[in-house]
């Protein structure tokens, strides 16, 4: 069962909105609205989770090609390079990712498939979060002399645009958001394996849980079962690879 628009809007409302006078108190909890009775509650990992999603047909359009989204991920940042990326390059990359997410969500919020107030509100709210993340990363990046041009990651923007454009309904929009947020959380996980700058570490640590919460909001809205919604550990398996998603030049 898909979550209702009203319920989903409540999920993504800003904290201050909950105090707004006259806000309806919903009688049913979120879970009742979107979980099946026969779901698997066994522990899962992001790897298992995304494999399930991928098996369900999640694909991305890159240029004219449609490829599995998972092909764009990499096991871990440090494993694909001859040496671990520098703090500065990681922060610049993360900023580009955040700007791409902010821009793609802002665009997606204008699409017909996201015309419902709930989905539109989620995309808008989370776009705002990503914009704040990008700004914070830019501040830390300046301290590190990061090679950032403060632009969205072009490849990720292209991928997200293709996915959102291809989405035919609200659920597909939410599934794209779920995948993007899952990969964002995974990317910060990878970054924390190599970051040595304290500010960059702390900032990553404060952003990662919010990306994780975004994924839950999107996934819950799409009606995912608990085993697919929340993994046992956040793993770096689905990190966005800077070599596949280079920052704009």
């Amino acid at each position, binding site marked *: 069962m898909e979550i209702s628009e009203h319920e989903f809007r409540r999920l993504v409302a800003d904290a201050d909105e909950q105090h707004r006078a006259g806000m309806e108190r919903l009688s049913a909890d979120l879970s009742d609205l979107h979980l099946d009775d026969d779901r698997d509650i066994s522990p899962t990992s992001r790897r298992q989770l995304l494999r399930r999603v991928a098996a369900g047909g999640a694909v991305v359009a890159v240029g004219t090609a449609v490829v599995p989204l998972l092909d764009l991920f990499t096991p871990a940042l440090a494993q694909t390079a001859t040496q671990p990326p520098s703090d500065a390059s990681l922060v610049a990359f993360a900023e580009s990712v955040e700007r791409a997410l902010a821009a793609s969500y802002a665009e997606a919020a204008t699409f017909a498939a996201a015309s419902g107030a709930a989905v539109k509100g989620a995309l808008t709210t989370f776009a705002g979060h990503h914009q704040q993340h990008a700004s914070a990363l830019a501040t830390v990046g300046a301290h590190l002399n990061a090679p950032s041009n403060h632009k969205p990651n072009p490849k990720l923007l292209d991928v997200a645009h293709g996915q959102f454009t291809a989405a035919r309904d609200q659920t597909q929009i939410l599934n794209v958001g779920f995948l993007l947020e899952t990969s964002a959380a995974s990317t910060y996980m990878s970054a924390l394996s190599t970051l040595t700058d304290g500010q960059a570490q*702390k900032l990553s640590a404060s952003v990662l849980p919010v990306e994780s919460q975004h994924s839950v909001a999107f996934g819950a809205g799409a009606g995912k079962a608990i085993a697919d919604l929340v993994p046992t550990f956040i793993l770096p398996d689905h990190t966005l690879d800077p070599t596949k998603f280079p920052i704009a030049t």
Partner: protein
Amino acid sequence: MSTSGDNVPQAPKSTGVDRRRFLTLGGVSVLATAVMAACGKKGGSSSGAGTTESTTSTTAPSPKDIDILRTAQSLEVAAAAGYQKIIDANVVKTSSLSDAVKAFQTHHKQHAQAFENATIGAGGEAYTQPNPVVMNQLLNPRLAAMKTEADATKLLYDLEHMLSATFQSDVGTFSNIAFNQKVASVGGVEAAHVAFLAPSTGKPTTPDGAFGSVDGAVPTTSIS
């Protein structure tokens, strides 16, 4: 790259935790007198989540690293125990929420095992008992007063938020940066638990806004 971090604007809500301040657990501010006393005993050696400690290295695990890992295990053991008491009380009737409670308890057991493995791997001794401060200040009083599903859900939300805050605050305090990823991999899941439970308590899925909060983080001195 290592830098001092001086004069660098702080990431919103990402720094500045004062482990000597009031512990805020479950919306109830608790003066953790036991924690304060323990801080005095240990000279605050484990209170390292402040802004002044902005650089870590890739050195071998330190005693402080082990303290953090042991505390993390104690918190996960406490969480699993709290979930078990809620399961045993049978107050959560909504089937989907009940299943989530079981799933999340399994997560916490696995998190505890992961921290135990990390502690032992770092040369420390596992801490297999539930965190006494969390049990005494949060779980036991709230469990004793729990009567409804709403009570249970609110307690679990507060518990999960405390865990998420703690693991977030741990990042950047390790001598061995490999442990940053360890606590973040768990903290991100606790944050997901928060997001799942939040709507049932009338809160949004991102209750802290754009950045996770470290308010209410539990210090390592809680197991001293």
